[in-house]
């Protein structure tokens, strides 16, 4: 089982950029391209205001990447994970083995590339004067928690995708909304300002809406804040963020596992 997981993960990693001239460099080019686009659009043109860090760092691109790399991992893990059963239909229909391994290996394969990306980010942050070495174990812990949550979602969605192929397209749109619903490209302070404006207007009708509290129901917000706290601010994540990260990872993984187990026996014939 462990052997199989490792081999399938390596298959994903090795197979992904085969026959491309740049090979594994692609796993760096992609995030760099996204970084450049977002930095130009949101940092330069739209002038999203960010606070300088506790350590005096004030670079939009780095601030962005501290949250964007974990998000990219999360969204890619959901998309490839939910496809993993359908994509390996031939295997599922012909060989018996624990099928969750397919989902897990596709998620873990992304961990490999994400680790490389984070490594490059750490180097870049170090060049800008951050002292990240003591914080690396915490980054690993956060990545493990995020992997657990992504795996939970991927397990659920991979089953749904066997029954309804719409799942894939539906989730693609959902992830796009989710990206903008999470303070990754913009700071949470913008949401606070919007809440103020909104409530000023609602007050005329004797109403109010806790926009920030609503925003904070999103587990990815807490992951974003936790990653930023460690990488950008060099502090411990807040207790609230950690409670959110640990419990959402545990709950989602548990539910995903149960759902997968429940539907696994009929998978071969439904494909």
């Amino acid at each position, binding site marked *: 089982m462990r052997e199989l997981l490792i081999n399938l993960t390596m298959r994903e990693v090795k197979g992904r950029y*085969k026959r491309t001239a740049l090979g594994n460099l692609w796993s760096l080019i992609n995030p760099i391209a996204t970084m450049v686009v977002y930095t130009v659009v949101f940092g330069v043109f739209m002038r999203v205001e960010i606070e300088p860090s506790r350590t005096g760092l004030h670079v939009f691109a780095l601030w962005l990447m501290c949250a964007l790399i974990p998000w990219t991992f999360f969204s890619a893990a959901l998309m490839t994970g939910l496809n993993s059963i359908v994509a390996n239909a031939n295997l599922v229909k012909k060989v018996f*083995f624990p099928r969750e391994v397919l989902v897990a290996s596709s998620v873990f394969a992304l961990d490999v590339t994400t680790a490389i990306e984070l490594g490059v980010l750490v180097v870049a942050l170090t060049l800008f004067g951050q002292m990240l070495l003591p914080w690396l174990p915490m980054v690993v812990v956060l990545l493990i928690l995020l992997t657990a949550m992504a795996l939970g979602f991927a397990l659920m969605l991979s089953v749904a995708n066997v029954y309804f192929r719409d799942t894939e397209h539906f989730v693609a749109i959902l992830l796009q909304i989710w990206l903008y619903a999470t303070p990754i490209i913009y700071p949470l302070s913008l949401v606070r300002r919007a809440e103020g404006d909104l409530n000023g207007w609602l007050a005329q009708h004797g109403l109010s809406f806790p926009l920030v509290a609503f925003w904070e129901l999103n587990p990815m917000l807490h992951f974003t804040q936790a990653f930023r706290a460690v990488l950008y601010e060099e502090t411990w994540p807040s207790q609230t963020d950690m409670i959110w990260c640990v419990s959402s990872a545990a709950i989602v993984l548990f539910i995903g596992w149960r759902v997968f187990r429940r539907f696994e026996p009929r998978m071969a*014939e439904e494909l």
Partner: protein
Amino acid sequence: MSEIIEVDGVSKRFRMYRERNQSLKASLMRGRRAKYDEFWALRDVGFSIPQGSTFGLIGENGSGKSTLLKCLARILVPDEGSITVGGSVAALLELGSGFHPELTGRENVYLNGSILGLGKREIDRKFDEIVDFAGIETFIDQPVKNYSSGMYVRLGFSVAINVDPDILLVDEVLAVGDAAFQAKCMEKFAEFRAAGKTVVIVSHAMGSMRTMCDHVAWLDHGRLVQSGPATSLVDEYVDATHVERAVQGDQPEHETGRHGSGEVTVERVELIDGDGQPVTTLRTGDPMRIRVHYDAHERVDKPVFGLAVETLEGVYVWAYHTRDGGLEIDAVSGKGSVDCVVPAVPLQPGTFDVIASVVDWTTQHTYDLRRKVVRFDVEAGSPRESGGIVAMGATWTREST
């Protein structure tokens, strides 16, 4: 002998979707998933497989053999009943499934091995044997997409067979590779059985099923007809499923290549069994008469009637004509018939075509020649010998010195 697999009242139901679009919209509109018909691929099937035996599943297409095999392999889960398996299982359902085309043969051996449940150290130990068996040493570090289909399948087979399970499930995959590789496979199976392991085979090749298997289970439309010793049950199955050929009229549909000047024509050819009944199916060792009905449109002197038998593949099995047989016919005019009497059909089970001709005494001029004028089947009878075209009625003896 103890039982290694116990199949008890197994039923498997499939859903046949009437409109399978797997779309969320469709199911939301209807408030439920797509409508489907239920179809029982297996219904209350029960038998047991003794340890160390070679067990065959026989039946026509759609009888549920492959479904049952997949249930044994745990790929499908029965809706009712239970399957108890007392050992590790490897299934050869599709060879090389799970190979990644971009990875090398070496990487794929490790990958496929681990899918089939082998640890890295076990694969390390068996690696040379696997590669050697597949016969692709020089290509092992090439991506498998560059392999020929034969190499691909051979490597898949080689990995699967080297998993060394207690029970091997095989679905029609024996027909892989060239003759040499097939011989190697059969050898491997024999080794496997000699080691006291169990093999379960699905195949349509009844000849090899009869010789390879100890026991078979015969399925028909998802139900178990019978299970028992292979030899008798395979014969019973072949007899039962045999499609009776219509006794053919003047112009059999598969007749080809009729030629001749036409003064005398072969009207039709009948096969007549020992009871004087026209038949198209006989058993090895049965008496048979081949009756040639002719029509002489004018008086023809000294005609010679000839008969020949060919296999479906066109192998020329036998020929005999009246001149060689010492039957001198002075002249023919009008309709009539000649008989060729075969005391005991010396053919092994198979399908054969008859060629009938009328020629002149010199055999140089053809009045009429009809190929495949009648087709007949031979079923297992007596003597029962192992294979080939002819049944020689041979016996084995041994003299010890």
